[in-house]
């Protein structure tokens, strides 16, 4: 039963991930991404990491992909022409893929997965208290660093997207459009974060 479910979810996750990358239609890609996230959440549930599953659905499937769709619809993106690998982007993608493979191999081959106490693993992902405790003790530094990274990205987006001129800086954001700008900034932050 568990194996069947695992294979189902894993297959779905892979298929939809491929779909997200390869689909020329932006909406299709975003929805494939959404389904991929839901499948991964299913995998988390199988691992008894309920909290992670719920958070994944809540934050990514619920909010982030909705934002993607919002941006796609706002920009009215039609079919995206297939992009070619060249120069820096090719180098970056090869390097990124290489790092990912290396990372997975490193964890898998050194037998670290086996050496971890089995009882401790689900507790971190399932129990709210254990999870929160770990966030504020063991993983405090990474959490703070990630927070700073997002903050920097957000500031960067605000600086890039707002045209600051000497006299109009104060009136740049009217009362009504402020919220919209806010939203747009948040959306682009998330996009930035994904990149």
């Amino acid at each position, binding site marked *: 039963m568990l194996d069947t479910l695992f294979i189902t979810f894993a297959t779905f996750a892979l298929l939809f991930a491929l779909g997200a990358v390869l689909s020329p239609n932006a909406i299709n890609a975003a929805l494939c991404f959404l389904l991929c996230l839901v499948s991964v959440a299913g995998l988390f549930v199988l691992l008894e990491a*309920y909290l992670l599953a*719920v958070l994944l*659905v809540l934050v990514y499937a*619920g*909010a982030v992909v909705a934002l993607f769709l919002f941006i796609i619809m706002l920009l009215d993106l039609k079919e995206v022409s297939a992009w070619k690998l060249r120069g820096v982007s090719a180098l970056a993608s090869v390097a990124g893929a290489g790092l990912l493979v290396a990372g997975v191999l490193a964890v898998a081959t050194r037998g670290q997965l086996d050496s971890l106490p089995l009882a401790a693993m689900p507790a971190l992902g399932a129990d*709210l208290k254990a999870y929160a405790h770990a966030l504020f003790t063991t993983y405090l530094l990474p959490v703070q660093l990630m927070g700073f990274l997002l903050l920097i990205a957000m500031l960067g987006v605000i600086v890039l997207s707002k045209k600051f001129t000497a006299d109009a800086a104060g009136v740049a954001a009217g*009362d*009504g459009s402020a*919220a919209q700008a806010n*939203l747009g900034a948040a959306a682009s932050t998330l996009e930035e974060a994904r990149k």
Partner: protein
Amino acid sequence: MIEFWTSLSPLLQGVIKGLAVIAVIFPLAGAGSMAERKVSAWIQGRPGPNRAAIPWLVKIPVIGRVLQRLGLFQLLADGLKFFFKEDPVPGHVNKFYFFLAPAVALIPALTTVVAVPFGAWLDGDAVVPIGLANVDLGLLAVFAVSSLGVYALILAGWASNSKYPFLGGVRASAQFISYELSMTLSVLPVFLWVNEPGLRGSLSLARVVEFQSQPGFWGGTWFLFTMPVCALVFLVALFAETNRQPFDMPESEADLVGGFHTEYGAFKWAIFFVAEYAHMIVGSGIFTLLFLGGWNPLPWVSLADFAALIGIAGSPLLVGVVSIAIFLLKVLFLIFFFMWVRWTVPRFRYDQVMVLGWQKLLPLSIANLFIYLIAIALLQPRL
């Protein structure tokens, strides 16, 4: 009975539970739409739908007449109409997503019910909540699944491939994200208060009700009284999340014809409607559990006390029925409140919705959270 139930295979149990949910939520949602028409009629000084009748049923003295005046047969007529009406599919739509959207609307609406406990029975002295699944992550799970509901509106708006539905879909996505933040932040104080230090942390909704049924003045107080700002922010965000007036931007028939469902008709349109009312029912249920003491009949009167008072503490089944009735009464009142507000308050402008969400509610809920953080840190050790 119980033995027979447990002897069934888990898969069959799941299917039966699922069917039970559908069998309860669908008629409730339909009744919601009828109640909406009746409430709107009463508020506007009209009798509302009161003509439709089934010939031999209406002959029953008194009851038949009352049912007819309440418009119950109209509900049946509407349901049948939605089933048998021609289902138009405009030529310019993206067929796949056009058909997918109503299904997507229904899934979260029906799934969230799973994590909402709706009653309790007494096992000796212990109060055991009744629900399809008492998930430890209760509220978070509900939020997670219900947050998927917005895709129905976005997909419907996008797949319709015409102007007004598209605007409705865009509005839906923006509004949903804007209010989700305040909604989540507004319930945090409740759980901070419930999860005292030293206990195993839990986001279970049943635990919140349990907390509100403790003896003593502070124990029995509903969170509505101790955390009015949380309740207010949550309620406003709930209105926005369920796309109810004054926040029904995605539909907004005055400026967007019908919003996201402009191109929909017949049964697919009815499914959107059922999903909206199901969301309302689940939302009201969660508000009841969090702030109105769940199945406790009155503030400072817990279910156990009440059962002892009217002398039914001995029979678990009766207590269960009474508790479900109390819970449903509160939920129905909240649904009435939703409608009452709808026929009172005019719709906000879109920019007002955004300003209210980002510039008013979000700072308010953050400030509220901080105040309660300090208050709970100071107060809780002493209580």
